[in-house]
């Protein structure tokens, strides 16, 4: 479904991504791991268009999407959440998700119908599924950090993506919140038939849920394989797991 081939990106003289390869099949739950500064977030930004790749190819369903603007890529069926909370702080929780749903339904430019009765049902279904219905009318900026991270995911769901990309969905969460969030992600993958690509710090989390793991080190892809195989991989052990 998504294929990243030999992608490179540098900032001035620093090669943030230097030969990344990634394959995500339909319906898979794929994780990208790697130490801080390995280039995970940069890779995601390249896939979803926040950055343009210098070299390499990124294809989605056979179509070259490398270098397209983010809103075009989103319309092709890829939605994402961000590592650092990236929401609409002055809008309510409901409105945060509704903005994405309106965009999905191509109604963002409608002028003469009040927004409060458009896309209501779809928005409520999403809030229900992530467990934020109780806080629908709260201003998003006043939510707790954990809830804001969940809202991140909910906004991305508003686009009804085929591929959902989550950049450290549990960053800054307590262990309880982390496991609840991973449960949520697994449930979304099952019930909505979503393909999910995520990156994560917590090894335990990654090895327990991911079907395929891609390991990045200094901007380069070391390997992409099933969890057991990644665990056995010599190169990975040396570079990352520290000979666990």
């Amino acid at each position, binding site marked *: 479904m998504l294929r990243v081939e030999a992608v490179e990106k540098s900032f001035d003289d620093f090669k943030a991504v230097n030969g990344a390869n990634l394959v995500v099949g339909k319906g898979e739950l794929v994780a990208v791991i790697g130490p801080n500064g390995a280039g995970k977030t940069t890779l995601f930004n390249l896939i979803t268009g926040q950055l343009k790749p210098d070299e390499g190819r990124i294809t989605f369903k056979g179509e070259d999407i490398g270098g397209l603007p983010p809103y075009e890529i*989103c319309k092709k069926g890829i939605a994402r959440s961000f590592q650092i909370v990236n929401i609409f702080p002055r*809008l309510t929780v409901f409105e945060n998700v509704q903005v994405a749903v309106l965009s999905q339904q191509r109604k963002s430019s409608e002028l003469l119908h009040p927004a409060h009765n458009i896309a209501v049902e779809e928005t409520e279904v999403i809030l229900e599924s992530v467990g934020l219905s109780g806080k629908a009318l709260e201003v998003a900026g006043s939510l707790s950090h954990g809830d804001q991270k969940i809202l991140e995911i909910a906004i991305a769901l508003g686009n009804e993506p085929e591929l959902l990309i989550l950049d450290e969905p549990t960053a800054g969460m307590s262990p309880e919140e982390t496991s609840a969030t991973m449960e949520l992600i697994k449930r979304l993958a099952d019930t909505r038939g979503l393909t999910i690509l995520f990156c994560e710090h917590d090894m335990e989390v990654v090895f327990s849920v991911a079907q395929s793991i891609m390991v990045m080190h200094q901007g380069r892809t070391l390997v992409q394989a099933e969890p057991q195989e990644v665990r056995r991989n010599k190169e990975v052990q040396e570079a990352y797991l520290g000979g666990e």
Partner: protein
Amino acid sequence: MFRGITEKRLLWFLAIIFIVLLIFPSILPRFYTYIIALIFVTSLLAMSLNLVVGYGGMFQFHHGVFYGVGAYTVALMLTKTSLPVWVGFVAGPVMATVTGFLIGWFCVRLTRLYFAMLQISLGSLIWAIAFRWYTLTGGDDGIHGVPMPALLSSQNNSYYFILVILTICLMAMYLIVKSPFGRTLQAIRDNPQRCEAVGINVRRHQLKAIVIATFFAGVAGVLFVVLERSVFPDLLFWVLSLEVFIMCLLGGWFTFAGPILGAAIIVSLRTFVGIYTEYWTLVLGVILILLIFFLPEGVMGYFLGKFRPLAKEVAHRSE
């Protein structure tokens, strides 16, 4: 059309205000009627700016240009051509919108301060045309004695005309703000990067907002000519743009009606303090300093913030 987005009580309140405003010209002296009409015109200008500043989060620093273009267009059409009056009235907003599109097209490619600087530069070019092209615009003399149709010849009639147009424009703006377009615009204000990620073409959306806002600024320009029967280059000078910007901040740029309050305060200050001293801007300066320290959300924002918890409590109790 407005069902569900406004409370019934609020609608009654607004209806009463409208009726009171209709009675005003027959009970108030001529001068006060004039000042209130001037507040109406300025309110419309400030409200139109707030669409892009308060709701769109863009640094529209030279909004006066579109007001001036609207006013000059109608004044020129009525003095230099023999076209029907309504053509001039329509041409004003249309020209303002075209100018808005052209300037906006360049500006949305930049962000924040660069947006503001570019707009001031482009706007100043248009000001220079109005200021220097004597044969067409009358230069710094402006154009005076713009003929008005008989229907608008008395001051009371122009007051009513301005009031009706203002009301229509405010209703239209309210619908726009509450529409999916308006909601998306506020989302862009809060977080343009995230908007791109949910599939919104941010620049195009911003440009649409500028075009809409400049249309209303053009309408305000036409109303100014209806009231004053003259135009002068100060209408497109950056000082006026700054004043309108201050009206939004002063009234409360995150509230719908805040700019009306801001316009009323500034026009009144200029008129009534201006009688006593040339330096009325000193008073304005002091008010601004106090505003920044004590009411960062503006006057309207302050009072809404104060009463909202109260309203919530009342609603809670009545459940």
